[in-house]
């Protein structure tokens, strides 16, 4: 009986002594989870902004947006887990989201640079062809006009006055 009392007292004391550590560990995991979510949110937002830049430069970003949606699903799960107090899952989902976001961001920057180069090249080609076209049209018009004028004058100068007969 005395042994049982001793065990109960020991357990109660252990629980009492351990509770600050348990609560502290929970608070610590809550802080870690909140920080992971905040980091993942920032990474996802900056990845989206990088994708928008790439899209603005004319790149095809549908593949990147599909991957961002995967990351968005993970971030949504992290938020839901955070609301439910499941902090281990929060950190796991947020870290995965952050990894995908970083990858997408790097790829988006690459796509943007490539799109800018291609657009620059396209612009040079278009401008070259436009200038060549304009010059060709102006030259042909001038030559055409001269030829037409010569022919017109020749026809006018070749005309001879005719004497009309008045038989009435």
């Amino acid at each position, binding site marked *: 009986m005395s042994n049982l009392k001793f065990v109960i007292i020991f357990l109660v004391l252990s629980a009492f002594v351990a509770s600050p550590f348990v609560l502290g560990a929970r608070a610590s995991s809550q802080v870690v989870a909140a920080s992971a979510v905040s980091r993942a949110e920032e990474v996802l*937002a900056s990845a*989206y*902004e990088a994708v928008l830049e790439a899209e603005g430069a004319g790149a095809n970003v549908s593949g990147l*947006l599909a991957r961002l*949606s995967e990351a968005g699903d993970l971030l949504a799960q992290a938020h839901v887990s955070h609301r439910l107090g499941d902090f281990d899952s929060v950190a796991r989902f947020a870290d995965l989201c952050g990894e995908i976001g970083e990858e997408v961001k790097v790829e988006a920057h690459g796509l943007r640079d490539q799109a800018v180069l291609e657009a620059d090249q396209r612009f040079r080609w278009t401008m070259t062809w*436009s200038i060549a076209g*304009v010059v060709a049209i102006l030259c042909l018009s001038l030559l055409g006009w001269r030829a037409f004028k010569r022919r017109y004058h020749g026809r006018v100068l070749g005309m001879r006055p005719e004497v009309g007969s008045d038989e009435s």
Partner: protein
Amino acid sequence: MNLEEYRTVFAVTSLALVLVAAFPTLSLVVPFPRGGERFSELWVLGPNHMAEDYPFNVRVGEEYSVFVGVGNHMGSSSYYVLYVKFRNQTQPLPNATASEPSPLPPLYEFQAFVVDGETWEAPLTFEFLEVSRFENSCLVRRVMINDVVFWVDSSSSWDSENNGFYYQLFLELWLYDVTSRSFQYHNRFVGIWLNVTAS
């Protein structure tokens, strides 16, 4: 026609051809305004992907499903968040006039990146897990949304006009704003009414 008139015809034709030749370059340099209104769509469809057969008379322990969707017509790819919220008849909805969201906390959420001119859709399943009823009131304790259990503890009084205990599951659409680097309520919400009397 005399020579002057022929010259005018030549000049006008040449100018038109010059403009045609220069148009590809001009289109790259001069920003032409984009026409059309910019907006987003938000919808809920029934279990058969149609705007019918929505769950209404719900029972505890039965799973119901609908589909939620977003259409992007904002002129560029957009980043959306959809918050799923749950309310009784007296709790506030979003204020469409003031463009303010409902102050109720979200339960579940979706995040979606949608290409301009395209749509996004996802299933939303829900189940009432614990409902208590007293004489003229009903208390929904737990609901499950997409396999995640939420404690809601939401009570509702008997609606004598419509004969039932009514709750609403609704979704708010939020849009990421690049300028402020934060989500803004996009003034779109949609919901379905649920009668838990039969539960």
